[in-house]
């Protein structure tokens, strides 16, 4: 229609068309206090990687304790100091601190901030055709609040009384009373402070994502033409915005109980040889508030991963994602339902059984949109022309985990079956597969897929394959056996099982799981090498290495602040025109107007082309 459009689609725009005043920024404002969404995304990613190593490292240590209870851990004394006794035994309370930190780090710092923070920030402006986020400054604040929160949480790990150790769900009274465990002293205080900053960060980010998606889409980028990644990030941000404030309230009341003598969660407690004056509070109230965030949080973690997978699978299958509308519908359904299923974490807390049956019903409904998503991924693979890039393999791995872990959800969502499985290793296996590993694979798929855009260079494919296979097989070898242990009734969060005859079995299996966990963790260093080495030394990336349709691949190899040197490209079609019958190539980018693709247009699209 106009000259500029054609220019953009021909990638004929040169630097001299640059309409913005370009000025060199100092190092500090370019790389540290940057308002560029791409830099902020990388900051989130690198911080997330740091936390992932730490969180994973903790899990290796406590897996050693579980797999080899008689082991002499003296060699860890240089790192853990007094938490290892002189006879080489791990302190039972520090064991609990480690599982607590592992959970907190993985759920919040890696899979919420590391995943959403990285890819929402990176992809929303690039895939929508925006120069940056709606508010660059809020975005900057979002990262630095996260950084502050990280620093506080990190410091808490070095307290002499240990970090928070009541489990990542920090149920009071355990978390409220320093008499109950030493981690509930200063460690818990720092945990709460850190979490408040974390929530502030999430909210600042979320408001930005939502505003950007609603207001800053380029011309032609209707909601019906948005890539599923953006749909997922958008709905995730809405979920976060609605649920995280409830966690603030929940945490704030706990702060009051801890520090100002209120009784929101405390009642009739006798501890440390004295009766506390608190009366009338309810620990169950805390659980309701916590899981009101906690359950949407699970979807805050998994939805972005599913969004990334949709994009990667479609691109590498050279086929449109199957059921684009159904995929959006299922994201919306999952998001809505995720707010009304929280009490399935509480079937056996003494909550009214009638309430339990309502939540059982709602919980099993949420399986339907999840199933639709899994079926759609599989159908997308059907009759494709599959290219197995590392990103594609990780996405297939994600679908596998999502199915395996999702199916075990049908046991746990069923209140009657949950009686025996609640808080056993079956639960551990379930959520590590469905949200832990699946979301982690989404994160890795995203890194492998968008690394060329992020750093202008390619990651090494072969190392990617080795990383994938070790991790994929490793994760299954770690978590699949845990189902058996869970069915046998092994409780989670146990320092050792030697006190019970009922749990004296499966010693070998536990050792096996530990070995698998160490190998899986070790394999991540291959990724780290591949990642950091190729930031500097990788092969230079082509402009569109995966022959993808979305807008980010129309930017220069290393996009500057502002993303497109010339005008922002205009969008004419949905992002999934792969292998369209009649088309010359097996992909038609979103920037190609219909009137240029007469040979592959449908009747409807021919009509549309007249309006262009």
């Amino acid at each position: 229609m106009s000259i500029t459009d054609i220019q953009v689609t021909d990638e004929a725009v040169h630097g001299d068309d640059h309409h913005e005043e370009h000025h060199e920024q100092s190092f500090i404002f370019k790389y540290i206090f940057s308002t560029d969404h791409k830099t902020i995304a990388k900051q989130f990613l690198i911080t997330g990687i740091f936390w992932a190593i730490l969180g994973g490292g903790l899990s290796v240590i406590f897996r050693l304790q579980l797999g080899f209870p008689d082991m002499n851990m003296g060699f860890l004394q240089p790192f853990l100091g007094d938490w290892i006794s002189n006879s080489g035994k791990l302190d039972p309370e520090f064991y609990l601190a480690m599982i607590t930190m592992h959970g907190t780090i993985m759920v919040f710092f890696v899979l919420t901030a590391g995943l959403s923070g990285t890819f929402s920030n990176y992809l929303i402006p690039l895939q929508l055709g925006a120069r940056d986020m709606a508010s660059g400054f809020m975005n900057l604040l979002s990262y630095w609040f996260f950084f502050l929160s990280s620093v506080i949480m990190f410091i808490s790990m070095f307290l002499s009384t240990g970090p928070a150790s009541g489990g990542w769900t920090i149920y009071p009274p355990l978390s409220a009373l320093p008499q109950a465990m030493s981690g509930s002293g200063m460690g818990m205080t720092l945990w709460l402070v850190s979490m408040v900053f974390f929530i502030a960060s999430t909210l600042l980010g979320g408001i930005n994502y939502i505003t950007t998606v609603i207001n800053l889409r380029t011309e032609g980028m209707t909601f019906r033409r948005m890539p599923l990644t953006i749909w997922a990030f958008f709905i995730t941000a809405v979920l976060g915005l609605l649920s995280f404030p409830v966690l603030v309230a929940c945490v704030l009341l706990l702060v009051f109980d801890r520090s100002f003598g209120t009784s929101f969660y405390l009642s009739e407690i006798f501890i440390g040889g004295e009766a506390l004056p608190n009366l009338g509070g309810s620990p169950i109230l805390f659980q309701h508030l916590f899981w009101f965030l906690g359950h949407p949080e699970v979807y805050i973690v998994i939805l972005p991963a599913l969004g990334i997978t949709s994009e990667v699978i479609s691109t590498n299958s050279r086929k449109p994602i199957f059921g684009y509308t159904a995929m959006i519908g299922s994201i919306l359904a999952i998001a809505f339902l995720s707010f009304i299923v929280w009490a399935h974490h509480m079937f056996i807390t003494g909550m009214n059984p009638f309430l339990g049956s309502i939540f059982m019903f709602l919980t099993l409904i949420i399986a339907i949109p999840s199933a639709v998503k899994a079926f759609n991924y599989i159908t997308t693979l059907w009759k494709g022309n599959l290219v197995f890039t590392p990103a594609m393999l990780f996405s297939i791995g994600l679908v596998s985990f999502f199915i395996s872990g999702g199916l075990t959800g049908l046991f746990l969502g069923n209140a009657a079956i949950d009686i025996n499985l609640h808080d056993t290793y079956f639960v551990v296996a379930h959520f590590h597969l469905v949200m832990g590993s699946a979301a982690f694979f989404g994160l890795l798929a995203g890194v492998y897929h968008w690394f060329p855009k992020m750093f202008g260079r390619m990651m090494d494919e072969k190392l990617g394959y080795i990383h994938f296979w070790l991790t994929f097989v490793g994760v299954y070898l770690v978590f699949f056996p845990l189902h058996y242990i869970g069915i046998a009734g092994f409780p989670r969060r146990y320092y050792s099982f030697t006190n019970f005859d009922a749990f004296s079995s499966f010693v070998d299996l536990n050792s096996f799981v530990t070995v698998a966990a160490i190998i899986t963790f070790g394999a991540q260093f291959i990724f780290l090498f591949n990642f950091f080495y190729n930031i500097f030394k990788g092969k230079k990336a082509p402009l569109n290495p995966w022959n993808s349709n979305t807008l980010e691949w129309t930017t220069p190899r290393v996009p500057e602040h502002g993303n497109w040197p010339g005008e922002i490209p205009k969008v004419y079609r949905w992002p999934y025109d792969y292998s369209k019958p009649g088309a010359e190539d097996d992909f038609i980018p979103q920037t190609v107007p219909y009137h240029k693709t007469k040979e592959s247009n449908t009747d409807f699209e021919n009509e549309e082309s007249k309006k262009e």
Partner: protein
Amino acid sequence: MLNTIIIIAAILILVILFAIFRVSSLVDVIKGDSSTKIPSSNGTQANLLLLFLIAGLVGGGYYSFGGLEDDFVLPVASKHGVITDTLFWWTMAITGVVFIVTHIFLFGFSWKYQHRKNQVAYFYPHNNKLEMIWTIIPAIVLAALVFTGWKAWMDITRESPEGSEVIEIMGYQYAWSVRYPGADNVLGDYDYLKIDATNQMGIDFSDRASFDDFIPREIHVPKGKPVRFNIRARDVIHSVYQPHFRLQMNAVPGMPTQFWFEPTKTTEEMRTETKNPDFQYELVCNKICGQGHFAMRYIIVVDELEDYKEWFKSQEPWLKQNADYLTEVPAKLREAASIAAGIENPAYLDAPNGLTISGSK
């Protein structure tokens, strides 16, 4: 010395790995196959996915059907446990089929439709009929699961039947205390303010019903009779869990909970069944409660009804064992208390009227 050698060896291995990596990436550059965007090992990856499917199915099948050294299915010893186990295995059958079929498709398609030069992907953006099918079928299956689960759940959680044995279990860091109602079959009141080093459960002796309550060292329950656990905690949340009975309920400070069940196998019978002469039903804490969480073990003994009754009768009221606490009983009830608890020479009779509490509080 050994450590130094290990460190040097590790560094050498890393250097060698790095050298291999450099050589192989240089070879790739020389080959110059970067014009095509299809990974050179695309076919290998597809084959590996298929291999993973087969190995996974074989391995998973082997372990699930007897390949493991230890049995992961605990024998069930309660009436409702049979029902929840049935539901469990039905769910396992349904999800197992879905698991296998979807994975065969997932990895099978991955292998079958791997990239080939002249192959063109089938442009297949949507099919509403298919979408409807795989929305409705899971919905129906799930409805069946929900309905059966709901029926079982409502049945398990309904009020305990008339005439159930009532036993109070209290969790604290890091042990359990158990109280029986005694001869009058009524548990006395408790008050957390009355807890002290001896009166661990805070029994309130202003209530007549508490005079004959007894606190044994292990739990005894009768086979074939409904048993109701009144559950509470005095410091943090604990969870009463017994895997053989498929029984679990949290113990919450300030909020009494309950769970009732009917044991179906005595400890002796379980010893025969499990071929373990030392078998004991163990009560487990299953909610993180502090550093001793993993050691809150308590024995439950399931007796034949007659044996249970005998055991029950042979137990001494707590008040008899701790006759000092008669002083907590209101003066006009002390005589009744002495009789109910079977105390023969109550100390208070020798003391002046209005004796103050000694040794406690």
